[in-house]
């Protein structure tokens, strides 16, 4: 866990708010999952938009 706690390089001098070790570490633990979910959600909404547009264009043509 020591590697996880090596966080000092992530700060400049101005950080006045204590982010909390636990809050920082939790984010690092969840980082991979959050990133994957985000990519999945973004791609999914792009796919949905693509098909919606295609479908509505087709409908316009039919009309």
């Amino acid at each position, binding site marked *: 866990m020591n*590697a996880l706690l*090596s966080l000092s390089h*992530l700060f400049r001098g101005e950080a006045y*708010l204590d*982010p909390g070790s*636990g809050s920082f570490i939790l984010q690092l633990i*969840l980082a991979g999952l959050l990133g994957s979910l985000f*990519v999945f959600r973004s791609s999914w909404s792009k796919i949905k938009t693509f098909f919606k547009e295609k479908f509505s264009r087709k409908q316009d043509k039919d009309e």
Partner: protein
Amino acid sequence: MSKYNRLGASFRDPSGFLFSYKGEIYRQINQSYQEDFNHLIESGLYDNLVQSGMLITHQEVDLEPPQREVAYKIIKPQRLLFISYPYEWCFSQLKDAALLTLEIQKRALKHGLSLKDSSAYNIQFHHGRPILIDSLSFERYIEERPWVAYRQFCQHFLAPLSLMAFTDVRLSQLLRVQIDGIPLDLASKLLPWKTWFNFSLLTNIHLHAAAQARYADEQINLKSTEQKMGLTSLLGLIDSLETSIRNLKWSPKDTTWGDYSSFHNYTPAAIDHKRQILNDYLEKIHPTSVYDLGANVGTFSRLASTKGIPTLAFDFDPGAVEINYLQCLQEGETNLLPLLMDLTNPSPGIGWQNEERLSLMARSSADAVLALALIHHLLISNNLPFEHLASFFAQLGRWLVIEYIPKSDPQAQKLLASREDIFLNYTPQVFESVFSERYKIHHSTEIHESDRILYLMERK
């Protein structure tokens, strides 16, 4: 510093501080914040947020800095009519403030910046919508770093909103005791077990609280690490928090407070007449600002706010404030701000030296105060003598429109039903004589088809 007055809420952040000078509010930006501030302006984020009404505007001014040795610039932020606090907001106000904070963070990340704090106190309601008032909340984004303000966001927004939605809406009042937001271990204890099956609340509240307890005493190793949080993961965190906040719902229908907008105790003619009298009084005095005390859903507050008068509508019922706020949003009202306030226990001064968050009485007063269908509640339910009421109203504003409700009124009788009538001085004569000590009574009009009287008074 002597000619300047440094403000009590602004001492934590070394980037700068607020001060007042000749009745105006200014902000000193310190040299240590110079690069971050310049990046806010040069990256285009400032213009982007200001144009969307999300960030307060400011002007750079030529004023001698209160702390010259560390000063970079002095700015004058746009003036706000009234500063309100998260424990005075209804559910949807706090939710909108949370969503604004996340939207700002997303835009900041696109411009190479990140929010370095996410305090709910940095958000205010201006022209009916939430706005970020701290221009020094941004720092240049450091690649691969987790969000510094994540803990604060969960404590200030996610914890109170989930407690309001899942446990009890009145738990927003914990914010009045816990000045840096609700501790996550406390929120975790108070939330029902079903929230453990909600992925966002499981991770952001329950596991977050567990991680805080687990790693609280860990020594930080100063060597470099392989552990990173890339931008995609950070955007994923913001996205998951946003989804979580959007999914939190609370509706006044879920409560037993009942039917808000009806007036069972007035005939239609009486309600019309009351409206007309109030309208006439407002036309006579043209107030520059109005506090409506015990405003319920803001029916009468709107007589003032629709004339363009900035109006605060206070009520102690979270359901009434919620309905009022939702109506403001629906109608796009910009002059009305509904706020949660128990007049028998108004917001106190809290925080360091009791000055970080001001008491209601220490904040600005109004030009006119409305106290409609109110005094019987204060008098009978809270045993407040007329002298105390007159003194309270006189502190809050110059003009007073007050409705006298006689003891014989069905609403007053309802309050007396379960208790002994110890209110021998509750008569119109005593009322007028006591209020005349502090006020000049300009008008009094009996409301048709009722025994109630509407007075217009001016503080002496």
